[in-house]
């Protein structure tokens, strides 16, 4: 039996909350990257901090990574990696969210 028939026969309702939770779980893990000797999450906070520091005419800084270790990083290079990763993952997340949002 194919899954469409299964859903129809069971009179199952699409759970948007579960879809949202699944997408969050899936894409949050994709936002993690190991670089320059630390482990980073490409989130808004880290990107904003790096972006702000990159305007201070400093090349390096020390950040606390997701393992709570202080790591000296080269700002421009890390900012580029995290921004690229963020954009790619969020675009993918948005596309799949739109796909699931139309389900009933």
């Amino acid at each position, binding site marked *: 039996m194919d899954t469409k028939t*299964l859903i129809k026969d069971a009179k199952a309702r699409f759970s948007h909350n*579960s879809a949202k939770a699944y997408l969050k779980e899936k894409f949050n893990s994709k936002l993690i990257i190991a670089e320059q000797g630390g482990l980073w999450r490409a989130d808004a906070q880290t990107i904003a901090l790096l972006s702000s520091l990159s305007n201070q005419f400093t090349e390096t800084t020390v950040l606390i990574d997701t*393992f709570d270790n202080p790591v000296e990083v080269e700002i421009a290079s890390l900012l580029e990696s995290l921004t690229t990763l963020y954009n790619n993952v969020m675009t993918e997340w948005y596309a799949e969210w739109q796909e699931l949002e139309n389900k009933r």
Partner: protein
Amino acid sequence: MARTRKQEIDRGVVVFAFNSSKYNYVEMAEYCARRAKAFLDLPTTIVTDEESAETITYDFDNVVIVEPDKNNIREHQVWINKGRYQAYELSPYEETLVLDVDYIINSDKLLKTFDFSDSFCCHNRTEMLMYPEAPQEYLSSYSYNSLWATVIMFKKSERAKQIFEALEMVQNNYDHYANIHSFVGGIFRNDYALTLALKIVNGHSEVLSDYIPWNLVHVGKNTSVYADALDVFDCKGEDFNTKFTVMFDHWKNSKMRKEYTMIKDMDFHIMNKDLFEGIMNG
């Protein structure tokens, strides 16, 4: 006794599979190995016994035959899950992923684990598909949050060796630790043994880099998973399905409502072997 077909490779997957009277674990291991090859581009070594090895149809990179410890009974059946500590000695790889055979790989995400630690990492948190409020598992109310032996990454190192030696020690003294930590000791669980082993090696402190920084996704109770298509292996090549429909029995005020969602390209672990066989065989 080890039968090695290819030269030692730096990275690879190790799976333990011993057939029982109820389930064909070797078949599950083959399903897992095919996906490890396709999504992670890693070779797989199977650790099994003589009898189970005769049922192998997949071309594993290595087949390691061991004498299984059948001294574990669950639901009146022999459950061969002891001996996971041997992974360190038996793995032909410098960097190894030890996977439960019922872990369904749908992405290359696990490759990231090799970047997270110089020695060892495993999951310390879980998420139940369609049941996000499910609590984390504890060994007991007086003990630790359980770690999970479903996915273990280790690199040959003194520290990883110590962890697996501690795992052996905990396995050999499981009832003693069950007594101390107030959990049921009758059935051996690798998850609990690993939790205790890692705590011992770390001097009962937390080392964040030992934990994979995302949740282990489980398919829990009242939840069914159906593959949207079967994997195809033919002369044209291999085509792996990564889309699944998840159905959940949502109970509220003594009434049950079926809910579903759809997932794709996401790794998950199925504890229910009947469900796993359903996905595997359609």
